[in-house]
């Protein structure tokens, strides 16, 4: 896929500031902003996209630089490909520490005010967090949209599954989802008539198959109901074999790497096992693919419809006191990530779209003093809680091969037990214990330094230790709670003087009940597999949570939501069901922040679907 060359020419701050009113001003070039930019450009609207991070990775050469940075990084932590940029900082996990009661830690970009310390992250660079994501793309279940009425927990959406279903299909097309309908029909999920996904499902890994062999045909009992166990494939935003039956037999053309020059790679996943943090060939979706289509609209019309201004940090929202509309946006534009020198410009538009991610969008609103009538901006912060369980399989499973994750155990995503405890989806990590222990490097260090192995013993030892690794990552439901929130405080600012986000979070009891059950569930599965349980949670771990006499290390899920929650009135929510702000009629706050609940679906497919919905509303508003 081609980026028109002129789209990569940096729009310059002076021209942008002086160029009058845009139809749509979008903050953030992640998938949310990209979808709205593309839909608006296709309707002939003039769009300005502001991106806080650098835009160098728009070209293949710039993208490949990220890969080299990753190869050269000593710690392959999950932000390792993305260079440090104090002007548009992002959370980086390795520096976190456990807090004492009442303590606040401001040594990392997100100020952790506890009691729970989250290692959740997002990426501030052209393409946003899709440059970094793993790309699992399950839909939410019907019941996830009405947990309050069905289970007495969380909130109901102002939208039903039926209302969002068509947009799910648009999102699946945009991302290029690989899945087989027959694998996704569990727990009452239905797909109309002849629907097929754009591409066929990615095959289950050998590891998945070994786990399935051990559990298929067995079941567990929970609250009087029986749940059969099986390893099922996950839908994925990674290129697979196109399904010729897609789109009524028209088929689907996968989009590989994007660049300003013609490149032929990434049309199909090659099994690099590196989807997180960066797919080397761009077989995994990132929002640059959607933006390439948006930029292509320019060329046809002979004028630039979509302009991208990178290294431009939206810093303050200016509201017209007479009508509550957004009048303009104050933007700090820097030349060099290594220097805080910047100029401040004012940008005008008919419609403003904040697509900066759930934490940064809330941060921008709060830093501008905009809490909204409901006072809910920044509140109801949600993120999936992950509980890791790891073991050694009795047989060699070929761990460390495949795409990052292909299958999981997902039959406990729904059931009457949700009246009492959180549901979960489990994914099997093809990269073994990496997330929990730093494998395979940690294994190498242990075998050489502590177990004194060398030569053939070391080679055999590595196989024995790594190729049998199994990690079950339990992704637990977290319900909205107003006291879990993002705030700002002038005493905590970044290099450009923008206030940094402060995170206050308690893992809800509902989730911890699910975690405690999840731990028991993992032990049952390991027993059935004859796998040696190696799971242990260190009380000094930053994410350690005690619950009913046991302790669990809870990890952040990177599925941020809730901070500009969607609802039915201006008093119970920040945005309406089209993600339009109740208080500011020309302002849309889009992305995970609008979601009232997150169920057990990784959030991106759903937030992408909502952005298609918002695009229609924006176009209606502009007419």
């Amino acid at each position: 896929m081609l980026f028109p060359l002129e789209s990569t020419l940096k729009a310059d701050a002076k021209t942008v500031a002086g160029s009058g009113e845009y139809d749509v001003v979008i903050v953030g070039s992640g998938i949310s902003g990209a979808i709205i930019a593309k839909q608006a450009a296709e309707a002939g609207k003039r769009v300005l996209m502001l991106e806080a991070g650098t835009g160098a990775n728009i070209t293949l050469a710039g993208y490949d630089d990220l890969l080299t940075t990753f190869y050269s990084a000593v710690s392959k932590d999950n932000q390792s490909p993305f260079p440090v940029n104090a002007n548009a900082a992002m959370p980086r996990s390795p520096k976190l520490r456990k807090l004492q009661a009442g303590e606040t830690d401001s040594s990392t970009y997100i100020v952790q005010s506890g009691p729970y310390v989250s290692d959740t992250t997002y990426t501030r660079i052209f393409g946003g967090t899709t440059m970094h994501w793993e790309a699992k793309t399950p839909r939410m279940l019907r019941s996830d949209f009405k947990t309050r009425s069905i289970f007495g927990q969380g909130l109901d959406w102002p939208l039903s599954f039926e209302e969002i279903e068509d947009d799910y299909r648009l999102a699946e097309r945009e991302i290029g989802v690989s899945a087989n309908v027959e694998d996704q029909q569990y727990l009452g999920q239905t797909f109309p008539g002849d629907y097929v996904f754009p591409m066929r499902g990615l095959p289950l890994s050998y590891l998945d198959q070994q786990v399935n062999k051990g559990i298929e045909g067995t079941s567990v009992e929970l609250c009087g109901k029986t749940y059969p166990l099986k390893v099922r494939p996950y839908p994925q935003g990674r290129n697979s074999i196109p399904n010729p039956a897609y789109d009524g037999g028209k088929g689907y053309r996968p989009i590989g790497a994007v660049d300003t020059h013609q490149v032929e790679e990434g049309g199909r996943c090659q099994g690099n096992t590196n989807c997180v943090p960066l797919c080397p060939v761009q077989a995994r979706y990132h929002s640059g693919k959607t933006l390439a289509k948006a930029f292509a609209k320019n060329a046809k019309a002979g004028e630039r419809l979509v302009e991208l201004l990178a290294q431009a940090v939206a810093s303050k929202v200016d509201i017209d006191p007479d009508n509550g509309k957004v009048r303009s946006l104050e933007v700090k534009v820097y030349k060099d990530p290594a220097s805080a020198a910047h100029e401040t410009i004012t940008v005008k538009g008919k419609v403003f779209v904040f697509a900066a991610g759930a934490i940064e969008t809330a941060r921008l609103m709060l830093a501008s003093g905009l809490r909204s009538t409901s006072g809910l901006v920044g509140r109801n912060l949600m993120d999936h809680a992950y509980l890791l369980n790891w073991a050694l399989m009795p047989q060699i499973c070929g761990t460390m091969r495949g795409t990052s994750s292909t299958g999981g155990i997902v039959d406990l995503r729904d059931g009457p037990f949700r009246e009492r405890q959180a549901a979960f989806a489990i994914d099997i990590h093809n990269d073994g214990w990496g997330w929990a222990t730093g494998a395979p490097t940690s294994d190498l260090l242990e075998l050489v330094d502590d177990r004194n192995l060398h030569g053939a013993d070391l080679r055999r030892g590595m196989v024995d230790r790594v190729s049998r690794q199994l990690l079950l990552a339990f992704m637990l439901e977290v319900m909205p709670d107003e006291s879990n929130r993002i705030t700002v405080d002038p005493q905590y600012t970044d290099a450009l003087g923008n206030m940094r986000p402060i995170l206050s979070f308690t893992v809800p009891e509902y989730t911890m009940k699910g975690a405690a059950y999840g731990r028991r569930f993992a032990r049952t599965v390991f027993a059935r597999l004859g796998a040696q349980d190696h799971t242990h949670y260190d009380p000094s771990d930053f994410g350690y949570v005690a619950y009913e006499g046991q302790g669990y290390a809870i990890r952040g899920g990177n599925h941020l939501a809730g901070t500009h929650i969607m609802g039915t009135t201006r008093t119970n929510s920040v945005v309406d069901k089209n993600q339009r702000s109740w208080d500011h009629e020309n302002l849309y706050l889009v992305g995970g922040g609008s979601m009232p609940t997150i169920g057990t679906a990784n959030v991106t497919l759903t937030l992408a679907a909502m952005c298609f919905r918002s695009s229609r509303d924006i176009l209606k508003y502009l007419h």
Partner: protein
Amino acid sequence: MSNRFEAFLGLSVELTAFSRFDLLGTGLAERYLATLDKVVGVEITDTLLAAFVALPPAEGEARIKAVRTTILGNELLGDVARALIKLWYSGTWFELPLAWMERFGSRPADTTFVVSPDAYVEGLLWKAIGAHPAGAKAPGFGSWAFPPKIPALPELDSKA
């Protein structure tokens, strides 16, 4: 090839159980010898190489025992040899233990670092387990659905 390089290669084969062919195939052998020279100095490197050259020609268990007593268990050379194993397996030089620095003096170049981007890609640990480095040398679509091809240790296995 110089005798010095020959000795380095022999030592590396001994410590990693990968063949000369595998080690030369990484294209990194010279760079790793230079890394040793740079980090711990030519003198200690030469001592390590001399200890290897002086090993008795024994085979099997006796050989392993000799490597343990004269190299891996040597107070000066043990930690350096272990750092060399880790370097071959991962492409990363891991800083020597504090106790070593306290006794033999710290070296300015002795920090944890990745020798080069290709050093990461050529790490032997991936080969040992029949996998590929995360993010490189992709084995191809769907390859993950099949059992891993873990390379055998021919000469060593046949002796056992």
